[in-house]
């Protein structure tokens, strides 16, 4: 607990330092406002947007897409990893195509995804899912393959059904690996969501950024970037908390 308190204090100190540097550059150092708006003007702009009801729908749209894409991508990733783990021979067949897909730069494929799936929500979710899928798949497969073979012996001895095996042995044992993948996938989901909104549509923080850029509303641009960073930090905190709760059995020995 002491370590955690210390870590959050250090975290807060770093943020304060950053905010101070920002304030100093835009205030006393007098950087031009259209290049670097002051923290006060950014906060004021965000406050105005919140007041007239424009801000929350944009934030909600982006967050909803991230969560939806993250959940779908994670479920698909774990499901395919489990199939590969269970069906011997499938790994050899699919390994090649999967490596090609995994190494293909999904962000470069984004325009293609928009052509295929249109300008609407589907394309955005598809892009996020394609980014989340691979880290979760790789983490889950590594986790499944690292399961102690004697746990499989135990399952054999107890004549567990396939479902009992999945729920009681395979899933919990590979959870640490899955979690590594989900943490990486969450960052990818954020990148994917913003990118998709840059390219099409008129909603979300990514759209706010392109709109602000096109109209030289630099404080608004900064505000949108700031909120994106805050979403990333919030996801990180939620995932860490979830991990602490569900994977406490996996942490190193207690004294």
């Amino acid at each position, binding site marked *: 607990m002491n370590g955690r308190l210390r870590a959050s204090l250090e975290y807060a100190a770093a943020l304060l330092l950053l905010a101070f540097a920002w304030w100093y550059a835009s205030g006393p150092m007098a950087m031009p406002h259209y290049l670097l708006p002051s923290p006060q003007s950014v906060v004021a702009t965000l406050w105005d947007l919140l007041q007239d009801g424009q801000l929350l729908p944009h934030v909600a749209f982006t967050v909803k897409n991230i969560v939806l894409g993250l959940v779908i991508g994670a479920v698909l990733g774990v499901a395919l990893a489990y199939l590969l783990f269970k069906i011997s021979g499938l790994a050899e067949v699919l390994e090649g195509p999967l490596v090609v897909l995994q190494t293909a730069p999904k962000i470069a494929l984004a325009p293609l995804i928009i052509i295929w799936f249109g300008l609407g929500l589907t394309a955005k979710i598809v892009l996020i899912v394609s980014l989340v899928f691979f880290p979760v798949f790789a983490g889950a497969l590594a986790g499944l393959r690292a399961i102690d073979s004697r746990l499989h*012996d135990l399952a054999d001895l107890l004549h*567990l059904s396939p479902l009992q095996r999945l729920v009681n042995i395979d899933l919990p044992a590979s959870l640490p690996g899955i979690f590594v993948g989900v943490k990486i996938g969450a960052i990818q989901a954020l990148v994917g969501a913003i990118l998709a909104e840059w390219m099409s549509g008129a909603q979300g923080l990514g759209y706010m950024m392109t709109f602000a850029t096109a109209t030289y509303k630099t404080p608004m641009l900064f505000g949108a970037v700031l909120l994106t960073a805050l979403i990333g930090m919030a996801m990180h905190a939620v995932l860490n908390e979830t991990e602490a709760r569900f994977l406490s059995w996996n942490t190193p020995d207690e004294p």
Partner: protein
Amino acid sequence: MITVQQIAKTFGGKEGTVVALEPFSLEIAEGELVSIIGPSGCGKSTLLRIIAGLEEPTSGNIALGTADLKRPVGFVFQDAVLLPWKTVAENIRFPLDTSGVPRSQSDEKVRELIKLIGLEGFENALPRQLSGGMKQRAAIARALADDPPILLMDEPFSAVDLLTRETLNDELSRIWQQTGKTILLVTHSVDEAAYLGTKVMVMSPRPGRLKKTIEVDLPLPRDEHTRRSAEYLDLVSELRNMMREMTA
């Protein structure tokens, strides 16, 4: 209770085949505690895994006189193999949960087992919080949970220190007498084999087969007096000589 007929096991690999077990037979009566000893690599663990149904023999037959029980054997691994995300009580309950025993019944059974095995106060501990000896206690309780007539133990105490080992040996002897299980214990400790067994089966080096069966006449219950008795010490040195000849 356990009849093994002309069993043999060959492992095939890319670098040729290895004969782990040569054809041999053995028989174990109900309620016996049979120790199996032999030099490293003699296939004693393989024999145990075949009896448990974890591996198929290359040839030969196994018959367990247990009618048609779904889970005729309880198995204790070398190092516990508890589910690390479950507490001690949940681990012991696991065989009951997965065979559909209702909570009201399994709660009672788990309480009994925890008492039998001496783990009171640790019901809600996670495996990582337990010492090696306590993990092994929990593993034995789990193996006994759905009351299988046969208990197979694969070097169950080889990972604990000597003093704990002697304590666990005493406990196992007591539990065996209390429950009347048929127990097959694979060990590389001649002391343990002699102290616990009603019979000691000695296996030859690879390719393994049954070399000799020694009846143990030490009186029950076994305790500190047993460890100091001349008969016990004679038996241990006899077994030790046998092992020495084989590995020389």
